[in-house]
């Protein structure tokens, strides 16, 4: 187990450098530069442009810029936004709870519904429900997020008026950001109805963001469950006179969860990339929207380090899933 962790940590170093190189190069491949965007594209005085570029250190050759960037990183300096002059780390940490809140709600939605649908589909294999769930999940998996989001907004928010169109909470409420999680902050505040309002704001974005993970989890759970239900120990459990629900959930699902958990971990990456689109559609003030705006403004430090932070997050989550895997599966736990 220890050597396994060490190996995984060792792999992080090249991954880390790969990410810095990639984000550094990609954002500079987009036409335009930060100064142009800041000054407005119609009339840029060439002299002022050159001055500004020099001030930002963007006139140096690319390799020098990259070395500057990596050198700062080595000192733990993530730089500051070209637009707001705020430190990237500070902006990231203040916006991240919003994204995390959305991602957790989406995962809860996808996890509960996906597991349930997968288990029932496996139990009723070949039934109308099974074919229905598998068909819908294939459609869900193939759904473009931005299109799906707009359709839901049009139907539920505009047509039916059930849910708000955008944002995290109505501007009527004055909420102090204590934890950054709107659901908790609204509960802590004494504003009446704020919690319900925040919850309503969360529903549509969570569904949109959770759709793809939901489809993947449902399909994975189904196939994993079908495999497990054929195992001898399921017959043993039934021969003990246990109730069908105990056989399925205690003896079946526990074992079927092992591969599902891996998929769950992999979905965190999908979730964060989905968050970028979802947050843009719903004007959700999280890191996804922050990154999109930064790309638009060619805010190099924000784009580079924002993506780097997200990448680190995905790596950490997958790492945690590997460890969790050992907890669920005793056969792995005992391999040393």
């Amino acid at each position: 187990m220890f050597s396994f962790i060490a190996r995984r940590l060792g792999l992080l170093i090249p991954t880390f450098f790969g990410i810095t190189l990639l984000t550094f190069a990609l954002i500079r491949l987009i036409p335009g530069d930060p100064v142009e965007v800041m000054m407005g594209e119609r009339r840029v005085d060439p002299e002022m442009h050159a001055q500004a570029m020099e001030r930002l250190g963007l006139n140096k050759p690319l390799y020098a810029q990259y070395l500057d960037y990596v050198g700062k990183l080595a000192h733990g300096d993530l730089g500051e936004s070209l637009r707001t002059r705020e430190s990237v780390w500070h902006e990231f940490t203040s916006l991240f709870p919003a994204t995390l809140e959305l991602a957790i709600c989406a995962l809860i939605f996808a996890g509960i519904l996906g597991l349930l649908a997968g288990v029932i589909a496996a139990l009723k294999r070949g039934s109308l429900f099974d074919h229905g769930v598998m068909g819908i999940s294939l459609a869900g998996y193939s759904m473009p997020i931005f299109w799906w989001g707009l359709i839901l907004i049009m139907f539920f928010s505009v047509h039916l008026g059930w849910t708000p169109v955008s944002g995290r909470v109505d501007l009527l409420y004055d909420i102090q950001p204590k934890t950054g999680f709107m659901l908790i902050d609204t509960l802590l505040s004494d504003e009446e109805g704020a919690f319900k309002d925040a919850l309503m704001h969360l529903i549509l974005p969570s569904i949109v963001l959770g759709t793809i993970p939901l489809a993947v989890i449902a399909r994975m759970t189904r196939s994993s469950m079908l495999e497990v239900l054929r195992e001898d120990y399921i017959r043993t459990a039934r021969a003990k006179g246990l109730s069908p629900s105990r056989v399925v959930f205690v003896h079946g699902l526990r074992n079927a969860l092992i591969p599902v958990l891996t998929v769950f971990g992999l979905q965190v990456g999908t979730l964060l990339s989905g968050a970028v689109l979802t947050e843009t559609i719903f004007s959700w003030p999280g890191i996804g929207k922050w990154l999109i705006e930064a790309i638009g403004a060619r805010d190099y430090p924000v784009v580079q380090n924002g993506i780097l932070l997200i990448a680190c997050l995905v790596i950490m989550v997958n790492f945690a899933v590997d460890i969790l895997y050992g907890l669920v599966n005793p056969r792995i736990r005992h391999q040393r």
Partner: protein
Amino acid sequence: MSLLQIKNLNVRFGDPKAVPVVDGLDLSVEKGEVLAIVGESGSGKSVTMMALMGLIDAPGIITADSLNFDGKDMLKLSASQRRKIVGKDLAMVFQDPMTALNPSYTVGFQIEEVLRQHLGLSGKAARQRALELLKKVEIPAPESRLNAYPHQLSGGMSQRVAIAMAIAGEPKLLIADEPTTALDVTIQAQIMELLLHLQKEQNMALILITHDLAVVAETAQRVCVMYAGQAVEVGHVPQLFDIPAHPYTEALLAAIPEHSEGAERLATLPGIVPGRYDRPQGCLLSPRCPYVQESCRQQRPGLDPKAHSLARCFYPLNQEVA
């Protein structure tokens, strides 16, 4: 009244007209009796027991005139009523112990589960009882085994755990479906000894499904020989071995390697068990029987009393009464 009374049991898969896997089986087991069921693979031994346990799902179709266990007709009970009996009064040990235990739970958890379900024990009492059961099945260092996972146990050890689980509810009838087939020869004898020891100690009935006729000769009081889903001969132990009435029983006995000592080849019965499409109209053994007569091909014999046993044959062997 017998502990177990099966009358005209039929098990089919698919539609009600499909060829039955178990075909009109009659069988009874008395309290505290050891009954062995022998027969080739595919003769319906396991399916019969699975039907009794309620472990056959759709598309399996079970019909019987009666499937009476301990005074209750198992087919007429609701699923939840049946679950009160299965795992408690009626328990089963399966063939491959390495896959029969759930890999995600400890041995203790899996034994305690039965105690919670059927005896209402929990917490310390359940743990204490689980430990006693492990001692009963003669597992070395039982205290430490309670927290072991199945993959940490050997095959023989796993089978002992499976037996502990099966006897946890102090069953009146234990079904052992080839309990030693998947184990090393040295372990086989130990497990067999343990089963018989427990059978005597708890005075439970034991149905032993096996291929090992030597074991049957030593342990069982009665034997049921099955062929192609039917019982072809049912009789008491020394007689059935010494003077078999059915040609199939005779052939099975002749196939024991020890009986062919000195011969170039082992004795075999040519041909295979009839399948779905070549099921004969007459006696199911008629295509393979060395004593076959014309009437055997036309009509199917019933399971009728012969000189020393019940046999399904028009021309039984060894009928001289001594």
